[in-house]
């Protein structure tokens, strides 16, 4: 009897998981909207985040996202931020239903920090990517009702010394991208744009310009994606993840890069 008691402690490898803690102690707090069945009509329109992208460059990974959230054919938000810091060496970009996406990002942040504090060291980048895949799979019932969450996860792999990008599908399928990826309603347009301009080992300034141009192209072709808003001064949010950690590209720098691209387009288009 007593044998089994202490052996159970060894089997409980999920000790360091915040999600498992929630499941055990307060399951009502786990984000899940699985009350209905897939045959039921979709939920009424709710805010959706649109285009996010990530690309590898010389120092690591650059992530960027437009600032608009849409609700059906309406603009729900003009200055939402879709790229979150997951921990010191990784970020998560959210696309899909805004509510569940932001909740998942928050839960994921807590999960990583919880693990780090309990275990005394952080998860590997691979471990983080897998954990996120499991959380997306948890959301599958809600996804069947239209509340799709498809983030991009990117980070700097300290062991390998490189930036890495992971994309997901709604079933929690996890795929690693070697160069770049874009997700969301304007994702395809952004990918097309990236395909033309992306090169390996770009310096930061060029990587920034490539990313911003991809977002502009997406905004031009996709009604859900917001372009740079010169009147209100709203520009895409851009983050970098490198050897020295997660950082934000200052808005000033983004604005100048946007203006340079717009000026160049003015003569050409």
């Amino acid at each position, binding site marked *: 009897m007593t044998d089994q008691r202490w052996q159970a402690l060894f089997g409980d490898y999920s*000790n360091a998981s*915040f999600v498992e*803690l*929630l499941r055990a*102690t*307060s399951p009502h*707090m786990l984000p899940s909207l699985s009350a209905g069945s897939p045959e039921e009509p979709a939920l009424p329109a709710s805010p959706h985040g649109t285009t996010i992208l990530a690309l590898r460059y010389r120092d690591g990974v650059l992530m960027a996202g437009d600032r608009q959230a849409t609700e059906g054919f309406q603009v729900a938000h003009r200055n939402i931020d879709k790229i979150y810091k997951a921990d010191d060496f990784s970020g998560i970009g959210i696309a899909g239903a805004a509510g569940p996406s932001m909740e998942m990002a*928050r*839960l994921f942040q*807590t999960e990583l*920090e*919880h693990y780090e*504090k*309990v275990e*005394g060291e952080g998860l590997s980048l691979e471990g983080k990517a897998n954990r996120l895949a499991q959380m997306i799979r948890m959301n599958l019932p809600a996804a069947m009702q239209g509340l799709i969450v498809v983030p991009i996860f990117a980070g700097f792999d300290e062991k390998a010394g490189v930036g890495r990008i992971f994309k997901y599908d709604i079933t929690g399928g996890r795929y690693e991208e070697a160069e770049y990826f874009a997700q969301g309603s304007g994702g395809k347009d952004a990918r097309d744009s990236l395909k033309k301009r992306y090169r390996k080992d770009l310096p930061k300034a060029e990587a920034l310009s490539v990313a911003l141009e991809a977002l502009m192209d997406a905004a031009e072709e996709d009604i859900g994606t917001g372009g740079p808003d010169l009147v209100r001064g709203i520009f895409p949010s851009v983050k970098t993840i490198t050897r020295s950690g997660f950082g934000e590209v200052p808005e000033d720098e983004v604005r100048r890069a946007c203006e340079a691209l717009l000026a160049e387009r003015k003569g050409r288009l």
Partner: protein
Amino acid sequence: MPLPYYVSPEQMMKDKAEYARKGISRGKSIVALEYSDGVLLVAENPSTLLHKISEIYDRIAFAGVGKYNEFENLRIAGVRHADLKGYSYSRGDVTGKALANAYSQALGNIFTQDIKPFEVEVLVVEVAEANGSKNEIYHILYDGTIEDEHNYAAMGGQADEIRRFLKDNYREGLPLEEALQLGVRALMVTQNKALTELDLEVAVLDRTKERRKFRRIPPEALSQILGGSR
């Protein structure tokens, strides 16, 4: 049928307290000191992997002396308490006071209800915001007794001597280097050997840091700071 031995409650509590105190007094000590930018924690701990001082939440740190497996259990419970609370409300709603109370309740219950009390003392430290509020240091004993301390705190084997030393030597608003040198001197009060960076575990709650204020000071940095005083 043989009658069970009668032990008066008073005697039982006394025995338990003595047992717990004995266990704690065998362990090495820890001091906490308020310095100009936050709170410094210094522990005598030759292990670099098994920590006595750790992070609980953005502005909260934990330190334990006594039996490792017991305060490690308390530490993990604290991380869970803090993360659950921060996730269900907001990060700002996680306070050292609530956590210290939870520890006090837990240790109090264990002391009265279990046969063997925990042989531990813990510190819960919360660093003040930049807005002029005060640092909080809670000291919780093996029987759930809780005290809030100001400026400095000590616990472990030779806590009384260390406290006396700090009472005479502590000044408010010390910079980090001086606070650290003072803390190390305090730990050396009861022993005749000098403590080097290899015998110490040091961490700070640094108010000037972003969000997560907890930071360990690695041995290289320690030896530089301590070297200056030798």
